[in-house]
């Protein structure tokens, strides 16, 4: 479904990604693990087109994404959930969700199904984006992106800064989304939420992929975890 090949991405003149390649198959959940600053967010920004790579190729359903503006990439079915949540502060919870609404055939997600998955958001319906706690904002940012009815969901650090109980709830909610057949690419800096949901994983460090394998292999591989993931 997603085929990333040898991408090189820069912020201005600083070279961040050095030829990263990986793939995600339909229906899979794949995690991208690595320390802060390893290049995870840049990889996501490369895919959605916010920081387009200078070299390489990103194919989604066999179509080249590099060179397309973010809104076109999003329209093709990629949903991006940013790590900093980026809730619109001047909009209510409902408006935050509805602003992402798009007419689409076979749309699974609408306000009802989203509120059914995140009952907490229904209670907060008329609250402004700024009045939410970290966990509520995280739910809202996921809900907002779901509203675009993506086929591939990019989740950047969905558990970042959340309390253990909230992480547990988030894990269950993302599990529900996965069950609906939505493909996922999740990144994280420690082994936790992402690995629990994923089938396969890649380890990224200093802008290159260092390791890849199934989740079982990854969890058993003490050496890789020590070298690239532990602080």
């Amino acid at each position, binding site marked *: 479904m997603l085929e990333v090949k040898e991408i090189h991405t820069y912020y201005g003149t600083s070279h961040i990604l050095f030829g990263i390649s990986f793939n995600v198959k339909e229906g899979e959940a794949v995690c991208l693990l690595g320390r802060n600053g390893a290049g995870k967010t840049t990889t996501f920004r490369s895919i959605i087109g916010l920081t387009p790579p200078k070299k390489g190729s990103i194919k989604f359903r066999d179509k080249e994404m590099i060179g397309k*503006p973010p*809104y076109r990439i*999003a*329209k093709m079915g990629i949903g*991006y959930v940013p790590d900093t949540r980026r809730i619109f502060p001047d909009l209510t919870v409902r408006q935050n969700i509805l602003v*992402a609404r798009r007419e689409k055939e076979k749309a699974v997600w609408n306000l009802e199904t989203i509120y059914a998955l995140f009952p907490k958001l229904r209670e907060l319906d008329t609250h402004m984006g700024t009045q939410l706690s970290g966990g509520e904002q995280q739910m809202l940012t996921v809900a907002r992106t779901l509203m*675009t009815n993506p086929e591939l969901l990019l989740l950047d650090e969905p558990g970042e800064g959340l309390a253990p109980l909230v992480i547990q709830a988030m894990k269950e909610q993302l599990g529900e989304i996965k069950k609906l057949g939505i493909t996922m690419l999740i990144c994280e800096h420690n082994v936790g939420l992402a690995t629990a949901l994923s089938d396969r994983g890649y380890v990224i460090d200093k802008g290159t992929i260092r390791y890849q394998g199934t989740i079982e292999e990854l969890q058993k591989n003490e050496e890789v975890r020590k070298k690239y993931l532990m602080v």
Partner: protein
Amino acid sequence: MSFDVLFSQFMSGIARAALLFLVASGLSLTFGVLRVLNFAHGSLYMLGAFLSYSIWKFLLMPVLGFYLAAIIAALIMGAVGILIEYVLLRRLYARGWPEQLLATYAIVLIIMDLVKWAWGGEFLSIPRPKPFTGAVLLFGFPFPSYNFFVILLGLGLLVFLWWLIYKTRFGDIIRAAAHDREMVSALGIPIPWLFTWIFVLGAFIAGLSGAVTAPFGSVALGMDIEIIIECFAVVVIGGMGSLPGTLLGSFIVGEVYAFGIMLKPELAIAFIFMVMAVVLIIRPWGIFGRPER
């Protein structure tokens, strides 16, 4: 000083505030969403005024002529807005403010010469349209009823913009994009499309406001710079990109001007900028504005 005189000044201040709001609301909207300080906004207003004059002359319709000319001029300015946004502005969003100001100032000069070439340097005006030709008595004082037309138009625009920004899906997108255009784009909303429409709306409002000034008898070269400077004061005082801010800013500038003229006519404009300076010292981002990120 008697109440009558003060009240009369107050009312003329309100009329001026309404006109300022008409022009400044478009400027503020464009800035709030596109983050481009459009120095040429006053030029769109001036071109709208001249266009409406020529269209009015061409139409030769006694009653409807003015209104029709104003709408047609505003529509033409909307089309000019598409042209400017598509050809020039679009290339400037990623640049810094100095470049944006220079480029929009270039438009100011181009439109100025175009107007000079097409209409010459005369003062033009359109007679007040029916039914706003006479005066209305308020507390025994006569007020030009055309002033009330402008005030009503200002209120109408306020209600329309409020509805558009706070009550429609387009408005949700506007408020979202004003804060985080990258995220809006990543949600699949075409930012270039949004920016074009916002700029067109701003240009349309500018053109309409220009047409509305024609019966005040002040369609002339120089009206572009005069209005843009006052509009900058309005949005700086009220807060860039804020609708309530533009409303309050227009009111303050309109009234300061009206009472300034009464106290010391030579200093009327200076008073406005003294108020602006005080606001800048106390609240650099304006009364309703937000500190820039």
